[in-house]
């Protein structure tokens, strides 16, 4: 098989320009999802009425449907919702000016919220229940207990799962091209379309993802090593 190496090299450097977009989407989705996910996890743990079953259904829906489908649903729903909202408040806002990254971040943060809440919930349950009682006995308030006793321990437990979550999230940003986001996949695909060099283009995407995902894994490995020293 004769690969077009000149094309392979050229496209690699072009496609890598989409990397900041992919990382941006990953980062902002995680950032936006953290706080809602935390409260969702608490609602599940404390079995808050009405909210807890709602969260359960939400998580089950997100985990039970393919990512592509979630993307397609939001991408066909959001523009018209924004449009009708803009009309109602009487602004002359044009939906076509919205950057596609906004949709991408929305989809991925809605998705991450569900998966992250499960990670947080499972990490909090690893902390022994006796510690709550002990803190109560020492006269600590609930908020103090969480801040000083539970969360530091839960965070250490959560790191490996958090690494997997980040990795999967970053991998799934490869689907952003459906929403016309100019990420790694989109750029390489456009390049490939000129001369039907699809194999080379996909090898490029593959290499970029391999490199970055390995880097993410190493990063989380280092974090784990550092944090382990705080573990008893």
């Amino acid at each position, binding site marked *: 098989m004769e690969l077009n190496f000149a094309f392979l090299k050229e496209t690699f450097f072009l496609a890598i320009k989409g990397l900041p977009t992919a990382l941006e989407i990953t980062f902002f989705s995680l950032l936006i999802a953290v706080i809602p996910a935390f409260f969702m996890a608490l609602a599940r743990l404390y079995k808050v009425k009405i909210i807890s079953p709602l969260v359960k259904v939400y998580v089950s829906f997100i985990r039970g449907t393919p990512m592509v489908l979630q993307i397609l649903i939001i991408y*066909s729903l959001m523009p018209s919702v924004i449009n009708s909202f803009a009309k109602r408040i009487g602004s002359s806002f044009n939906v076509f000016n919205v950057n596609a990254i906004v949709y991408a971040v929305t989809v991925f943060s809605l998705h991450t919220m569900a998966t992250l809440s499960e990670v947080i919930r499972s990490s909090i349950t690893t902390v022994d229940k006796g510690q709550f009682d002990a803190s109560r006995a020492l006269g600590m308030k609930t908020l103090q207990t969480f801040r000083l006793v539970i969360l530091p321990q839960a965070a250490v437990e959560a790191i490996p799962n958090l690494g997997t979550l980040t*990795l999967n999230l970053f991998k799934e940003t490869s689907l952003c091209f459906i929403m016309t986001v100019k990420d790694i996949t989109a750029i390489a695909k456009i390049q490939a379309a000129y001369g039907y060099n699809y194999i080379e283009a*996909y090898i490029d995407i593959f290499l970029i993802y391999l490199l970055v995902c*390995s880097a993410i894994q190493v990063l989380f490995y280092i974090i784990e090593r550092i944090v382990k020293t705080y573990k008893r």
Partner: protein
Amino acid sequence: MRPFSTEYIIKSLKILAPFIGKSLLVMVLSVFFGTVLGFFLAWGRLSKCKVCKSLSSVYVHIIRCTPSIVLLFIVYYGLPKLGEIWFGIRAGYNGKLLYVVITLSLLFASAMCELFRSSYESVDVGQSEAAFTLGMSKFQTARLIIIPQALSSAFPVFCNEVVSLLKQGSLAFTIGFIDLMGEAQVIVARDYGAHGLETYIALALIYWGITILIEQITNAIERGRNKWN
């Protein structure tokens, strides 16, 4: 905003329902081939042969770092070319089912390798040593001591992986394979994108239903086994 019609969801559900079989067929085939390949990978990983060990861990690492859609495209565009050059077969881009199953099996094999390895390691080494001292052969030890114990920890994870495989299968529409997702795209295109949202919601309901069903079956089997033990 275009009026949202609930009737259209029901209409799409009716059109999509016959394609559930095709998606499930892809899933079952991939689970079968993936499990076989994963078994050999795990064998390599646990063996004393250094080359097999590193080959299998490199494979798992690469699959872990590759988005499923990229792997699908590499298999779809790359394999026919390889076939042409190595074997002189002009496979063309027609047997899409084959490419989808190959891709998903490759993905599933890596997950299975990790699963087999971790569940094998979860059984204490002392047990196989004890079995040896009792004069059991290697095969007997595996069949009677290790596998029954490893299975119990592996089963829920296995079902999780099957669900995630089903979801990854939905990407097959990108190469033009007509399964559930592909048919949904056909419906949307036929109406010039007019009822995209309703069709996608119908499809989401189908996928959600299937995953919930798989989860319930898993739970039922787990409960049954716990009672039996």
